[in-house]
């Protein structure tokens, strides 16, 4: 306990406590439990979302983050896709070709999604919120 204490005293906040560890592990595992999505489904969803987004912007694959999070019994898909470069109009294929109805894309694509997970509609315990792009 003393060495632990000294470690924290000198290393500051770099040392995570087991309490922080268990909380973050639980949040991830519960988000998956609640959404009831298989890893294969997550993977194929991830691939497709990346495909669509890459059509418009160049994504930095290094800092990519794609996870399910849970808050107040609602599950949200959190995708953090760092943008390296915005492709020019000409690079982007017209929407009609893709056959997918997409909501209007803002001029400046945001580099990250809100910290606060949004309510989703697949979770039967949470109210639906139709305003969000990437919610499950």
């Amino acid at each position, binding site marked *: *306990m003393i060495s632990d204490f000294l470690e*924290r005293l000198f290393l500051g906040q770099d040392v995570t406590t*087991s309490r922080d560890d268990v*909380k973050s592990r*639980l*949040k991830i595992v*519960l988000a998956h439990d609640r959404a009831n999505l298989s890893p294969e489904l997550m993977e194929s969803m991830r691939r497709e979302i990346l495909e669509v987004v890459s059509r418009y912007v160049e994504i930095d694959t290094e800092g990519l983050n794609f996870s399910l999070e849970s*808050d107040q019994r609602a599950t949200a898909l959190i995708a953090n896709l760092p943008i390296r470069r915005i492709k020019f109009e000409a690079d982007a294929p017209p929407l009609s070709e893709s056959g997918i109805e997409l909501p209007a894309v803002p001029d400046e694509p945001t580099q990250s999604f809100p910290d606060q997970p949004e309510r989703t509609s697949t979770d039967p315990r949470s109210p639906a919120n139709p305003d969000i792009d990437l919610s499950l």
Partner: protein
Amino acid sequence: MGRIIVITSGKGGVGKTTCSANLGMALAKLNHSVALIDADFGLRNLDLLLGLENRVVYTALEVLAGQCRLEQALVKDKRLHDLVLLPAAQNRNKDAVTPEQMKQLAYALTKKYDFVLIDCPAGIEMGFQNAIAAADEALIVTTPEISAVRDADRVVGLLEAHHVKTINLIVNRIRPAMVQANDMMSVQDVQEILAIPLIGMIPDDEQVIVATNRGEPLVLSENFSLSGMALQNIAQRIEGKDIDFLDLDAPYDTLFSRLRRFFKR
């Protein structure tokens, strides 16, 4: 009409039966009539925790088979006259009864008793389905451990799917010193993750083992420990009283721990 409350957890060994026995006794001490149903067919233990094992004659199964009347199967506690136990059969398994039959038993008991507490078995299979079939309310017992919280979350989902509207959380076996050292989730951590209302927190206590050894639930003794008080408070909150939560951290809020928290910031 009495209230039917199921005590459940998903994971085994987190203190469901201990909570059932103590809350039943505590409610009876508060002058309510209480019927405890052991829904753990094949692995019954509630009779042991209540110290009533020698007086079990008939079980729920004999009642359902028409071999005895419901009243004959009820084991009456001699210490608290308003407390009865409906034992589970020990020589059968969980498939011996159906959710419909459990409903019949529980509804029949609500006519005479203020509270019908159902001690649910571990797991989410048939025994669980039976135990929750009749319940209007549920108490989820969990400990601040990852596996117990995960299972509790699953059970909350299943209860909501079964339209059990009132679900409250009991966090059991807290070790305040470990929470202070950031080596255990706090009650608030667990409550935030599960996102259901908290009705009680019980500290880890060796006296629970002593009480189990004797078959005398904690709340029965005159000068009970902190955990006994925590259970007594839960019973009063079930009654609808607004009782403050115990400050479990107080004995551990020393100068050293304060200094440590200060440096950690």
